[in-house]
Protein backbone atom coordinates (compact mmCIF):
# COMPACT_ATOMS: atom_id res chain seq x y z
CA UNK A 1 0.00 0.00 0.00
CA UNK A 2 2.73 2.45 0.90
CA UNK A 3 4.16 2.22 -2.58
CA UNK A 4 0.76 2.90 -4.07
CA UNK A 5 0.20 5.84 -1.74
CA UNK A 6 3.44 7.45 -2.92
CA UNK A 7 2.27 7.15 -6.52
CA UNK A 8 -0.83 9.18 -5.76
CA UNK A 9 0.25 12.79 -5.54
CA UNK A 10 -1.09 15.73 -3.56
CA UNK A 11 -1.85 17.43 -6.85
CA UNK A 12 -4.03 14.47 -7.86
CA UNK A 13 -5.75 14.62 -4.49
CA UNK A 14 -6.57 18.29 -5.09
CA UNK A 15 -7.92 17.44 -8.53
CA UNK A 16 -9.95 14.54 -7.11
CA UNK A 17 -11.50 16.91 -4.58
CA UNK A 18 -12.77 18.98 -7.51
CA UNK A 19 -14.31 15.94 -9.17
CA UNK A 20 -11.62 15.27 -11.76
CA UNK A 21 -12.39 11.79 -13.14
CA UNK A 22 -8.76 10.90 -13.92
CA UNK A 23 -7.63 11.85 -10.44
CA UNK A 24 -10.47 9.85 -8.90
CA UNK A 25 -9.44 6.85 -11.00
CA UNK A 26 -5.85 7.22 -9.82
CA UNK A 27 -7.06 7.42 -6.24
CA UNK A 28 -9.07 4.20 -6.59
CA UNK A 29 -6.18 2.41 -8.31
CA UNK A 30 -3.75 3.51 -5.61
CA UNK A 31 -5.87 2.37 -2.69
CA UNK A 32 -8.22 -0.37 -3.82
CA UNK A 33 -5.77 -3.21 -3.05
CA UNK A 34 -5.38 -2.12 0.54
CA UNK A 35 -9.09 -1.51 1.15
CA UNK A 36 -10.17 -4.67 -0.64
CA UNK A 37 -7.57 -6.86 1.10
CA UNK A 38 -8.49 -5.50 4.51
CA UNK A 39 -12.19 -6.04 3.82
CA UNK A 40 -11.61 -9.54 2.39
CA UNK A 41 -9.48 -10.70 5.29
CA UNK A 42 -11.85 -9.24 7.82
CA UNK A 43 -15.08 -10.53 6.28
CA UNK A 44 -13.85 -13.68 4.56
CA UNK A 45 -15.80 -13.60 1.31
CA UNK A 46 -15.15 -11.83 -1.94
CA UNK A 47 -18.75 -10.58 -2.35
CA UNK A 48 -18.89 -8.98 1.07
CA UNK A 49 -15.42 -7.51 0.61
CA UNK A 50 -16.32 -5.99 -2.75
CA UNK A 51 -19.53 -4.51 -1.35
CA UNK A 52 -17.68 -3.05 1.60
CA UNK A 53 -14.85 -1.65 -0.54
CA UNK A 54 -17.37 -0.05 -2.87
CA UNK A 55 -19.28 1.50 0.04
CA UNK A 56 -16.06 2.84 1.53
CA UNK A 57 -14.97 4.49 -1.73
CA UNK A 58 -18.44 5.96 -2.26
CA UNK A 59 -18.35 7.37 1.27
CA UNK A 60 -14.87 8.74 0.59
CA UNK A 61 -16.15 10.37 -2.57
CA UNK A 62 -18.74 12.26 -0.56
CA UNK A 63 -16.19 13.28 2.07
CA UNK A 64 -13.23 14.13 -0.15
CA UNK A 65 -13.43 17.81 0.75
CA UNK A 66 -12.49 16.95 4.32
CA UNK A 67 -9.38 14.96 3.32
CA UNK A 68 -6.33 17.09 3.94
CA UNK A 69 -3.42 15.02 2.62
CA UNK A 70 -2.39 11.65 1.18
CA UNK A 71 -1.56 10.40 4.66
CA UNK A 72 -4.94 11.52 5.91
CA UNK A 73 -6.53 9.74 2.94
CA UNK A 74 -4.80 6.44 3.73
CA UNK A 75 -5.64 6.81 7.42
CA UNK A 76 -9.30 7.58 6.62
CA UNK A 77 -9.63 4.59 4.29
CA UNK A 78 -8.10 2.14 6.78
CA UNK A 79 -10.19 3.49 9.62
CA UNK A 80 -13.52 3.42 7.81
CA UNK A 81 -12.84 -0.02 6.30
CA UNK A 82 -11.82 -1.50 9.65
CA UNK A 83 -14.73 -0.01 11.56
CA UNK A 84 -17.32 -1.04 9.01
CA UNK A 85 -15.89 -4.56 8.79
CA UNK A 86 -15.89 -4.91 12.58
CA UNK A 87 -19.50 -3.71 12.68
CA UNK A 88 -20.51 -6.24 10.03
CA UNK A 89 -18.74 -9.07 11.82
CA UNK A 90 -20.45 -8.19 15.09
CA UNK A 91 -23.84 -8.03 13.41
CA UNK A 92 -23.41 -11.27 11.49
CA UNK A 93 -21.29 -13.20 13.88
CA UNK A 94 -20.88 -16.41 11.90
CA UNK A 95 -20.57 -15.22 8.31
CA UNK A 96 -16.80 -15.15 8.19
CA UNK A 97 -16.43 -18.47 9.98
CA UNK A 98 -18.59 -20.34 7.53
CA UNK A 99 -17.13 -18.83 4.42
CA UNK A 100 -13.39 -18.46 4.99
CA UNK A 101 -12.64 -21.91 3.66
CA UNK A 102 -14.49 -21.30 0.45
CA UNK A 103 -12.26 -18.42 -0.51
CA UNK A 104 -8.85 -19.44 -1.74
CA UNK A 105 -7.42 -15.98 -2.23
CA UNK A 106 -7.24 -14.55 1.23
CA UNK A 107 -3.47 -14.78 1.11
CA UNK A 108 -0.94 -13.75 -1.46
CA UNK A 109 -0.58 -16.41 -4.15
CA UNK A 110 2.70 -15.04 -5.41
CA UNK A 111 4.31 -15.66 -2.08
CA UNK A 112 7.09 -18.24 -1.90
CA UNK A 113 6.55 -19.24 1.73
CA UNK A 114 5.01 -22.47 2.91
CA UNK A 115 1.47 -22.77 1.47
CA UNK A 116 0.37 -25.20 4.19
CA UNK A 117 1.48 -22.79 6.86
CA UNK A 118 -0.32 -19.96 5.12
CA UNK A 119 -3.52 -21.96 5.02
CA UNK A 120 -3.07 -22.70 8.69
CA UNK A 121 -2.54 -18.99 9.45
CA UNK A 122 -5.65 -18.18 7.47
CA UNK A 123 -7.70 -20.48 9.68
CA UNK A 124 -6.13 -19.03 12.81
CA UNK A 125 -6.85 -15.47 11.70
CA UNK A 126 -10.48 -16.48 11.39
CA UNK A 127 -10.48 -17.53 15.05
CA UNK A 128 -9.53 -14.07 16.29
CA UNK A 129 -12.11 -11.58 17.52
CA UNK A 130 -13.03 -8.81 15.02
CA UNK A 131 -11.00 -6.21 16.89
CA UNK A 132 -7.96 -8.48 17.25
CA UNK A 133 -8.19 -9.45 13.60
CA UNK A 134 -8.24 -5.78 12.59
CA UNK A 135 -5.20 -5.11 14.77
CA UNK A 136 -3.25 -8.03 13.24
CA UNK A 137 -4.16 -7.00 9.71
CA UNK A 138 -3.20 -3.36 10.24
CA UNK A 139 0.09 -4.51 11.75
CA UNK A 140 1.13 -7.14 9.21
CA UNK A 141 -0.78 -6.17 6.06
CA UNK A 142 -0.59 -2.39 6.33
CA UNK A 143 2.71 -2.39 8.24
CA UNK A 144 1.45 0.15 10.78
CA UNK A 145 3.11 0.49 14.15
CA UNK A 146 1.00 0.08 17.32
CA UNK A 147 0.67 3.86 17.78
CA UNK A 148 -0.85 4.26 14.32
CA UNK A 149 -3.09 1.23 14.87
CA UNK A 150 -4.31 2.75 18.14
CA UNK A 151 -5.18 5.98 16.34
CA UNK A 152 -6.85 4.19 13.46
CA UNK A 153 -9.01 1.96 15.64
CA UNK A 154 -9.46 4.54 18.40
CA UNK A 155 -8.08 2.12 20.98
CA UNK A 156 -5.66 2.66 23.84
CA UNK A 157 -2.13 1.73 22.81
CA UNK A 158 -1.97 -0.91 25.53
CA UNK A 159 -5.08 -2.59 24.14
CA UNK A 160 -3.45 -2.76 20.73
CA UNK A 161 -0.28 -4.27 22.19
CA UNK A 162 -2.35 -6.70 24.20
CA UNK A 163 -4.31 -7.79 21.11
CA UNK A 164 -1.08 -8.29 19.16
CA UNK A 165 0.62 -10.21 21.93
CA UNK A 166 -2.33 -12.49 22.59
CA UNK A 167 -3.00 -13.06 18.89
CA UNK A 168 0.62 -14.05 18.21
CA UNK A 169 0.71 -16.27 21.28
CA UNK A 170 -2.48 -17.94 20.16
CA UNK A 171 -1.11 -18.50 16.65
CA UNK A 172 2.12 -19.96 18.03
CA UNK A 173 0.29 -22.26 20.39
CA UNK A 174 -1.92 -23.49 17.59
CA UNK A 175 1.10 -24.12 15.37
CA UNK A 176 3.14 -26.60 17.38
CA UNK A 177 6.73 -27.05 16.25
CA UNK A 178 6.22 -24.99 13.14
CA UNK A 179 7.38 -21.60 14.27
CA UNK A 180 10.07 -20.46 16.58
CA UNK A 181 9.39 -17.47 18.78
CA UNK A 182 12.51 -15.75 17.57
CA UNK A 183 12.59 -12.09 18.48
CA UNK A 184 9.76 -12.48 21.00
CA UNK A 185 7.53 -10.03 19.13
CA UNK A 186 10.09 -7.26 19.31
CA UNK A 187 8.07 -5.18 16.91
CA UNK A 188 5.06 -4.93 19.23
Amino acid at each position, binding site marked *: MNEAVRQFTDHELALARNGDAQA*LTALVLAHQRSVYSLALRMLGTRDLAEDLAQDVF*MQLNRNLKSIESREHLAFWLRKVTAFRAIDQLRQRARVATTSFDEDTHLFNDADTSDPLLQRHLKLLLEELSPAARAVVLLRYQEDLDPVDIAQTLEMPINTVKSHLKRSLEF*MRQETPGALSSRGEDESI
Partner: protein
Amino acid sequence: MSQDLESQLRAALRPIAASATFEKRLIACVTDDPQHSQPKANSVGGAGWRSRARWLPVAAAACVLIGVGLQNRLQVRRERENGLEARRQVVEALRVTSQKLDLAYEIVKSQSSSFTDENPGV
Protein backbone atom coordinates in the same frame (compact mmCIF):
# COMPACT_ATOMS: atom_id res chain seq x y z
CA MET B 1 8.52 -23.47 8.30
CA SER B 2 11.61 -22.23 10.03
CA GLN B 3 10.71 -18.60 9.57
CA ASP B 4 9.23 -16.84 12.53
CA LEU B 5 5.53 -16.17 12.74
CA GLU B 6 5.70 -12.44 12.11
CA SER B 7 7.68 -12.84 8.88
CA GLN B 8 5.23 -15.48 7.74
CA LEU B 9 2.31 -13.22 8.55
CA ARG B 10 3.87 -10.29 6.71
CA ALA B 11 4.51 -12.44 3.69
CA ALA B 12 1.06 -13.95 3.75
CA LEU B 13 -0.77 -10.70 4.36
CA ARG B 14 0.50 -8.66 1.45
CA PRO B 15 -2.39 -6.79 -0.18
CA ILE B 16 -4.31 -8.77 -2.78
CA ALA B 17 -5.55 -7.20 -5.99
CA ALA B 18 -9.27 -7.30 -6.56
CA SER B 19 -10.55 -8.67 -9.85
CA ALA B 20 -10.27 -6.44 -12.90
CA THR B 21 -14.05 -6.49 -13.24
CA PHE B 22 -14.51 -5.18 -9.73
CA GLU B 23 -11.82 -2.56 -10.26
CA LYS B 24 -13.61 -1.26 -13.36
CA ARG B 25 -16.95 -1.27 -11.57
CA LEU B 26 -15.47 0.58 -8.62
CA ILE B 27 -13.91 3.26 -10.81
CA ALA B 28 -17.19 3.67 -12.70
CA CYS B 29 -19.11 3.99 -9.41
CA VAL B 30 -16.76 6.57 -7.96
CA THR B 31 -16.36 8.71 -11.07
CA ASP B 32 -20.09 8.63 -11.94
CA ASP B 33 -21.31 9.33 -8.43
CA PRO B 34 -23.70 12.30 -8.80
CA GLN B 35 -22.86 13.33 -5.24
CA HIS B 36 -19.46 14.38 -6.52
CA SER B 37 -20.61 16.17 -9.66
CA GLN B 38 -19.64 19.81 -9.52
CA PRO B 39 -22.36 22.34 -10.43
CA LYS B 40 -21.33 24.29 -13.52
CA ALA B 41 -22.17 27.98 -13.80
CA ASN B 42 -23.57 27.82 -17.32
CA SER B 43 -24.85 24.27 -17.38
CA VAL B 44 -28.27 23.90 -18.90
CA GLY B 45 -28.81 20.17 -18.63
CA GLY B 46 -27.08 17.26 -16.96
CA ALA B 47 -26.40 17.17 -13.23
CA GLY B 48 -27.82 20.66 -12.62
CA TRP B 49 -31.12 19.70 -14.18
CA ARG B 50 -31.16 16.36 -12.32
CA SER B 51 -30.44 18.19 -9.10
CA ARG B 52 -33.31 20.59 -9.73
CA ALA B 53 -35.56 17.69 -10.76
CA ARG B 54 -34.86 16.02 -7.42
CA TRP B 55 -36.24 19.08 -5.62
CA LEU B 56 -39.41 19.35 -7.71
CA PRO B 57 -41.51 16.85 -5.70
CA VAL B 58 -40.36 18.48 -2.46
CA ALA B 59 -41.26 21.94 -3.77
CA ALA B 60 -44.65 20.69 -5.02
CA ALA B 61 -45.41 19.11 -1.65
CA ALA B 62 -44.40 22.32 0.13
CA CYS B 63 -46.69 24.36 -2.17
CA VAL B 64 -49.63 22.04 -1.48
CA LEU B 65 -49.04 22.26 2.27
CA ILE B 66 -48.80 26.05 2.19
CA GLY B 67 -51.97 26.22 0.04
CA VAL B 68 -53.93 24.01 2.41
CA GLY B 69 -52.71 26.05 5.37
CA LEU B 70 -53.72 29.37 3.76
CA GLN B 71 -57.12 28.02 2.75
CA ASN B 72 -57.72 26.78 6.27
CA ARG B 73 -56.74 30.14 7.71
CA LEU B 74 -59.00 32.03 5.27
CA GLN B 75 -61.92 29.74 6.13
CA VAL B 76 -61.45 30.36 9.86
CA ARG B 77 -61.26 34.10 9.24
CA ARG B 78 -64.42 34.05 7.08
CA GLU B 79 -66.34 32.06 9.72
CA ARG B 80 -65.23 34.50 12.40
CA GLU B 81 -66.39 37.48 10.33
CA ASN B 82 -69.76 35.76 9.70
CA GLY B 83 -70.11 35.17 13.44
CA LEU B 84 -69.37 38.81 14.24
CA GLU B 85 -71.90 39.98 11.63
CA ALA B 86 -74.57 37.65 13.07
CA ARG B 87 -73.83 38.98 16.54
CA ARG B 88 -74.08 42.55 15.32
CA GLN B 89 -77.47 41.79 13.70
CA VAL B 90 -78.79 40.15 16.87
CA VAL B 91 -77.70 43.16 18.95
CA GLU B 92 -79.37 45.49 16.43
CA ALA B 93 -82.59 43.42 16.52
CA LEU B 94 -82.57 43.52 20.30
CA ARG B 95 -82.02 47.26 20.24
CA VAL B 96 -84.96 47.82 17.82
CA THR B 97 -87.18 45.47 19.82
CA SER B 98 -86.27 47.29 22.98
CA GLN B 99 -87.14 50.66 21.40
CA LYS B 100 -90.50 49.31 20.20
CA LEU B 101 -91.26 47.91 23.64
CA ASP B 102 -90.38 51.24 25.26
CA LEU B 103 -92.63 53.06 22.80
CA ALA B 104 -95.50 50.62 23.43
CA TYR B 105 -94.99 51.02 27.18
CA GLU B 106 -95.11 54.82 26.89
CA ILE B 107 -98.33 54.65 24.85
CA VAL B 108 -99.97 52.21 27.22
CA LYS B 109 -98.87 54.31 30.18
CA SER B 110 -100.18 57.59 28.71
CA GLN B 111 -103.53 56.01 27.76
CA SER B 112 -103.92 54.48 31.19
CA SER B 113 -103.28 57.89 32.93
CA SER B 114 -105.76 59.77 30.72
CA PHE B 115 -108.38 57.12 31.38
CA THR B 116 -107.91 57.53 35.15
CA ASP B 117 -108.17 61.31 34.89
CA GLU B 118 -111.44 61.07 32.95
CA ASN B 119 -112.98 58.49 35.33
CA PRO B 120 -111.79 59.35 38.82
CA GLY B 121 -114.28 56.93 40.54
CA VAL B 122 -113.07 53.85 38.74
